[in-house]
């Protein structure tokens, strides 16, 4: 579904992506783990178009999207969440999702009829909200949500774009144990319909969700395999799992 071919990116003298290649097959969850500053977010940014790679290609469903802008990649089927929660704070929870549905449903160059009154948009948004378990929050302003609820809302927004692939940048960051467990269950459920590239620090999550794990250290992929292979891989242990595990 997603293929990345030898991506390179420098910030001045700092090489944040060194010849990164990876792929995510349909139905698969591919996790990227690595220490702080390894270049995980920068990788997600390049895939979603927020940052431009210096060289290399990003293919989505076989189509080269490397030179498309952010919004074109979303239209092409890339959905993403942010490491630092990013929603529309003055919009209601429902309207956050409805706005994302709207992007995929007909033209938004309509100037006179009320968008909030469009039943089809609202119904689809409601359905997605109940899927992530936020239906009872639909009418609240997004700014009123708890951190955990915001993370769910971001996933709902990403789902609303009916993506071919989800890019999730540390969705568990800042969540408590129970909240994490809820989110892991949700992602497990979504996995079959939405292939995912998951960046995550939470090892429990990674071992429960991922089919394949890539270990990124200093911009370079140093190990790759199934979760249990990576757990046993000395290089990965040294680089990342070493101390705590």
């Amino acid at each position, binding site marked *: 579904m997603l293929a990345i071919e030898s991506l390179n990116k420098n910030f001045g003298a700092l090489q944040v992506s060194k010849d990164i290649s990876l792929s995510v097959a349909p139905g698969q969850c591919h996790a990227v783990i690595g220490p702080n500053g390894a270049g995980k977010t920068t990788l997600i940014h390049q895939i*979603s178009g*927020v940052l431009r790679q210096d060289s290399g290609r990003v293919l989505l469903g076989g189509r080269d999207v490397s030179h498309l*802008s*952010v*919004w*074109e990649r*979303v*239209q092409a089927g890339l959905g*993403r969440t*942010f490491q630092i929660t*990013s*929603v*529309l*704070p*003055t*919009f*209601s929870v429902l*309207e956050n999702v409805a*706005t*994302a549905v*709207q*992007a*995929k449903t007909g*033209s*938004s*160059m*309509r*100037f*006179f*009829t*009320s*968008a*909030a009154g*469009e039943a089809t948009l609202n119904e689809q948004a409601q359905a997605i909200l109940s899927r992530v378990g936020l239906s009872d929050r639909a009418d609240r*302003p997004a700014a009123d949500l708890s951190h955990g609820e915001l993370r769910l809302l971001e996933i709902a*927004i990403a789902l*609303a*774009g009916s993506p071919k692939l989800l890019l999730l940048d540390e969705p568990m960051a800042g969540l408590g144990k129970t909240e994490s467990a809820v989110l892991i269950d949700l992602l497990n459920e979504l996995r079959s319909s939405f292939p995912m590239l998951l960046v995550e620090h939470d090892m429990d999550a990674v071992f429960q969700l991922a089919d394949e794990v890539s270990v990124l250290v200093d911009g370079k992929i140093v190990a790759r395999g199934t979760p249990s292979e990576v757990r046993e891989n000395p290089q990965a242990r040294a680089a990342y799992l070493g101390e705590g595990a």
Partner: protein
Amino acid sequence: MMDRGALIGGMIFALLLAMPVLLPILGAGYLTGLLIKAMLLAIAAISLDLIIGHGGMVSLGHAAFIGVGAYATAIGLESGIEEILLLLVITLAVTGGIALITGMLALRTSGVYFLMITLAFGQMIYFTLTSLAAYGGDDGLTLWSLATLFGSDIVQEGEGLYFFVLAALFLSWFSVWRISQSRFGRVLRAARDNPQRAEVMGYPIVRYQLIAYVIAACIAGVSGLLLVQYAEFVSPSIAAWQRSGDLIVAVVLGGLGSRNGAILGAFFIVIMEEFLSSIFHEWRLIYGPLLVILVLYAKGGLNDLIHPKSREAS
């Protein structure tokens, strides 16, 4: 749920509609001109609120579009075009065209840089107007003939002009409100709230912002057209950046992105100026602190004082 925004808007327009009858009864017929001035400011403020309140784009050059509209009209009149609907088309084409070009460049930036670049474009337009020697240059131009509607002079003065301006105010108010609630307006507000998120929802946000910028400029241009018709005079001073500042004050004072705020703010400014300057000469000494107090204590603007929590976010 009762729609208080519509109710208050309806009351404002009912009052304005009744004024030509009420004022003479109260022996205050001389205030008609003041009301026209306030309505013209309100039209421009409403348009500015589309880009500031709903779009989050703070322009400090908006009055330049009033100037462009006014000069397009004045030059049209000077060249013998008198039909107001034709002048309207010319005004819309010229302001819209200039806004499209300047907007494309200005929207490469955002925040304080957007403010600076719109200020710069506004000043360029202002100085261009002062250099139009054939049309009065710095001193401006008195117009000896005014526009007609289908050959009739009904829109040139008195009640005819008053109702024509009122109709324009109503159309601007109604359209901007509808636009803000439409799919387009929703995208515009999303881009104001969080541009990156709006883009990652799949929207080319600059395209939406540019269209809003052009619409706002066109409405301001119409206010310029009507200003010529009312004042029978045009000068570059209407395009000065201080006028853009007044518009921002009107919009912020009224309540950003609220249904009736821009009208309330504009009327407040015009009436306060008139009232304070009639009591004493150094009225600006009071006006300044008054603004400070209002901004500090009525964060949602005058609109919030009338009906709290009505900011139309959804």
